[in-house]
């Protein structure tokens, strides 16, 4: 028994190292690659010794903020997806599918319509919108009279709520062309065109969400077999559910406010991680925090390179990467009721 | 008129997993055949194959000599009725309306409710004793009542052959006996029944032909008195037991051996 455990531990540690290495590569690529590719050694030099050249400007004003945002948003979305999948015991849960992103988006648009364009206001609006949407989706599609919600029911509720929110968004964008102009760029989900100040605004909320989320690994493990089992193991399901909801809201709200809605990151990454490590949240959560930014940054790099000199926003790339993953998953394993 | 339902060299599989391979089974006409076996032995799969819900990987299911899969679905539905485990009643449907849907194989776009339909539904509901419940919503009924309503739907189809997949699951014992007694009555009226049951003693009590399956193949078949022996039960189910005559009906009754307790 201990031999198997030791083997599993070695396997997981290897995976951890591997994912960390992948992340490092992604960061390097993110800073080095682009319409104008710079060799890594030059990048390294410019990072620490900015010399006012055009290349230095590219590194410091474009690539570094981009990479930093990608790291932050990726970590947030990966963790929130993992938390949601653990809590709902539903391997197909994704903040985007469950309407959380739409809620954040709708709130941001309301803010834009009311003239609130500063990032700080957007962050709090996004968090609020994400939370409200999550609650509504859960109430509409979630457990009724003690029955556990089927995966499709929650997803359907998410789609319905998203559609309702989008209608409101449409109305507002049509009434005020300025809102449309801001919204259409924001909604695609992009790491470009935002500066590090955004990270400063979003950072505290994100950090709070990350800490809270990671702390929930143990309690979520206990609840993995059901709320009654969790209670027997000394965990308070109501508290855990509330805390997880709060963490997801903070993380999604912050990430969406910073870079716009990014599809499928929260779905694909925890799913892939879980299939390698098993359902132990003490591994799934941290690994998701490391693996998701890698995906986001690699998607961003792909977007820069694929249609050069134009750019595909990272939101489009993650949708095109994530949807086939979802479809392949659904086809391969069937949908558990 | 007898109806021969035969599985001939039948192989059934789900995607890549083969469940039943080269199985032969001739269901005796006008018998009450019961299929038993441990979990995952393939008994439900066999029933689904016989009911044309699962296409054979190889071999065939023959009804009166014709391969069932070459027959039109409606034609099969007029000969073979199936009570599956996975039946859904639409919200708020009344008992009478639900039973009436069993007449579909005999109806068409222009012939939506003939006098024959009326008679068939009335008879089916009378046989299953749900006539008094005709106007009640199916959702409000108890488990036993609901099972009788689904049985009425299948009876309304007026098929000479009935296939039943675990018709007594989720019922308490009184209702189980009620449903099984009803099935015995239907059998006596001349129908051929094939039922999958999980309770060996009930199977032995009601079956005229017992089929014991294990690992996707038939271990033994025949009248329960001949087939159900302690040796067979030990081999197929892994249960040491004694087989004694049922004090009420005389059919074989399986009594597990006492466990040697180490205290």
């Amino acid at each position: 028994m201990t031999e198997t455990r030791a083997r599993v531990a070695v396997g997981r540690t290897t995976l951890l190292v591997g994912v960390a290495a992948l992340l490092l590569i992604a960061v390097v690529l993110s800073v080095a690659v682009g319409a104008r590719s710079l060799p890594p050694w030059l990048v390294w030099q410019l990072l620490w010794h900015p010399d006012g050249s055009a290349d230095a400007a590219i590194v410091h004003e474009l690539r570094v903020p981009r990479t930093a945002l990608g790291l932050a948003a990726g970590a947030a979305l990966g963790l929130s997806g993992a938390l949601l999948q653990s809590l709902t015991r539903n391997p197909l849960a994704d903040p985007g599918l469950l309407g959380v992103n739409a809620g954040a988006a709708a709130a941001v648009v309301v803010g834009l319509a009311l003239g609130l364009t500063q990032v700080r206001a957007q962050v709090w609006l996004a968090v609020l919108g994400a939370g409200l949407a999550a609650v509504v989706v859960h109430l509409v599609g979630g457990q009724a009279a003690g029955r556990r919600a089927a995966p499709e029911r929650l997803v359907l509720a998410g789609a319905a709520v998203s559609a309702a929110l989008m209608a409101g968004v449409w109305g507002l964008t049509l009434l005020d062309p300025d809102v449309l102009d801001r919204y259409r760029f924001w909604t695609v989900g992009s790491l470009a065109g935002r500066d590090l100040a955004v990270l400063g605004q979003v950072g505290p909320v994100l950090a709070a969400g990350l800490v809270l989320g990671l702390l929930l690994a143990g309690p979520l493990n206990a609840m993995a077999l059901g709320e009654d089992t969790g209670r027997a193991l000394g965990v308070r399901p109501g508290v855990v559910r509330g805390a997880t909801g709060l963490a997801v809201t903070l993380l999604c709200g912050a990430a969406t406010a910073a870079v716009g809605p990014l599809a499928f990151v929260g779905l694909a990454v925890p799913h892939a991680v879980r299939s390698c490590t098993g359902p132990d949240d003490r591994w799934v959560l941290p690994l998701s925090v490391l693996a998701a930014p890698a995906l986001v940054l690699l998607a961003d790099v792909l977007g820069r390179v694929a249609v050069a000199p134009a750019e595909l926003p990272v939101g489009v790339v993650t949708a095109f990467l994530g949807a086939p993953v979802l479809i392949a998953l659904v086809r391969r394993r069937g949908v558990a009721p | 008129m007898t109806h021969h339902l035969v599985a001939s060299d039948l192989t059934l599989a789900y995607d890549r997993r083969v469940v039943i391979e080269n199985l032969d089974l001739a269901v005796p006409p006008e018998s009450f055949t019961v299929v038993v076996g441990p979990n995952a032995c393939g008994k439900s799969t066999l029933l689904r194959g016989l009911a044309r819900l699962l296409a054979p990987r190889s071999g065939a299911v023959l009804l009166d000599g014709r391969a069932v899969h070459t027959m039109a679905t409606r034609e099969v539905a007029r000969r073979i009725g199936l009570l599956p485990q996975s039946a859904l009643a639409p919200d708020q449907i009344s008992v009478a309306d639900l039973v009436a849907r069993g007449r579909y194989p005999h109806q068409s776009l222009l012939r939506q409710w003939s006098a024959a339909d009326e008679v068939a539904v009335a008879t089916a509901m009378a046989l299953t004793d749900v006539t008094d419940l005709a106007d009640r919503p199916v959702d409000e009924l108890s488990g036993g009542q609901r099972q009788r309503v689904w049985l009425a739907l299948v009876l309304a189809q007026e098929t000479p052959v009935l296939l039943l997949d675990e018709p007594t699951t989720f019922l308490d014992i009184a209702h189980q006996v009620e449903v099984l007694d009803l099935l015995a009555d239907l059998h006596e009226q001349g129908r051929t029944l094939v039922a999958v049951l999980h309770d060996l003693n009930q199977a032995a009590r009601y079956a005229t032909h017992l089929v014991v399956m294990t690992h996707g193949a038939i271990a033994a078949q025949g009248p329960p008195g001949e087939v159900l022996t302690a040796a067979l039960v030990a081999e197929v189910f892994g249960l040491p037991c004694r087989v004694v005559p049922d004090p009420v009906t005389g059919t074989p009754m399986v009594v597990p051996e006492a466990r040697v307790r180490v205290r």
Partner: protein
Amino acid sequence: MSADVGQRASAGAPGALGAPGSLLAQGRVLRLAGGRLSLRWRPRAVVVGGTVLALAAGLVLLALVLGDFAVPLDQVWGALTGAEGPAGTVVRELRLPRALAALGVGAALAVSGALFQTLVRNPLGSPELIGFTQGASAGAVAGIVVVGLTGGALALSALGGGVLTAVAVYLLAVRRGLLGARLVLVGIGIGAMLNAVTWWLLTRAELATARTATVWLVGSLNAKGWDDVTLLVGALVVLGPLALVAGRALRLVELGDDVARALGLGLRRAQLLLVALAVAAVAVGVAVAGPVPFIALVAPQVARRLVRGPGIGLGTSALVGAVLLLAADLLAQHVPPTALPVGVMTGLLGGVYLGWLLRRDGRRT
């Protein structure tokens, strides 16, 4: 065993109109030609249908009267039957076709929603599941932004995108020839990809073009004329009979895959027919008015509650959808300070509906 079987059988005399089908708790039977032809009908459905139809007529009248150029009631008949002058033009060329188009689009979308809800056995089902609306949106926006299409060509572009997407989703979701829970997730996955493309295209356009595209995306009945109405009537003629056949198949699909097949329904073919019909219906609606949200979701459920029957009826859904869309269009045109596209109003409707769903489920738990 009951002995009055014979009595019950004679309750429906041949040729009698509406002889109570005593065993059909919620229906009556019309028998003709000595019993060779028999049709079932439900009194409540007919009453509800008639009422909704009357409501539709009233709303059409309202649509003809209201507007910047108010047409007094006594002049409406004259305007309809060919009187010259501004009243006649406004009524005949603008308001009447728009109102009829609203009825037609609403009916088409509702039928599509009813079919999807029965196929996935879930009241939250809608044409978005098969990705049609997202594909049509992507096709239309690509047409507007990249090529600058309008009118019929734009509709074709939308339809092309929609149909291609629906086919792709169907093929990916089908398993051993049958649909199942996979449809929802595959549709949403492909839908998300197409949404990303659509919005990305919007960022590549001039603001003015983006606005035009957005108006289409919202769903609008602006400037709908007689050619749109002709299209809708043609669709009704073609799809109507198919819908009748579909209605019978739906009653079995509701009972679950196994029971449906055991009762003699060729399930694979039936599902294909139902999906094709649903896609055709939504295609007609989207071709005329763009992807108007929520009618497909809400109308069938409202119809079901009004008729209080098991399952979702196609006819009543169509009528309810027609009335809902026309009402929404009237509200969108005359209530806000500037006229809004009907899609915004149906979106709000959808929000209210979801809120009501919340309260109802909340009370149940």
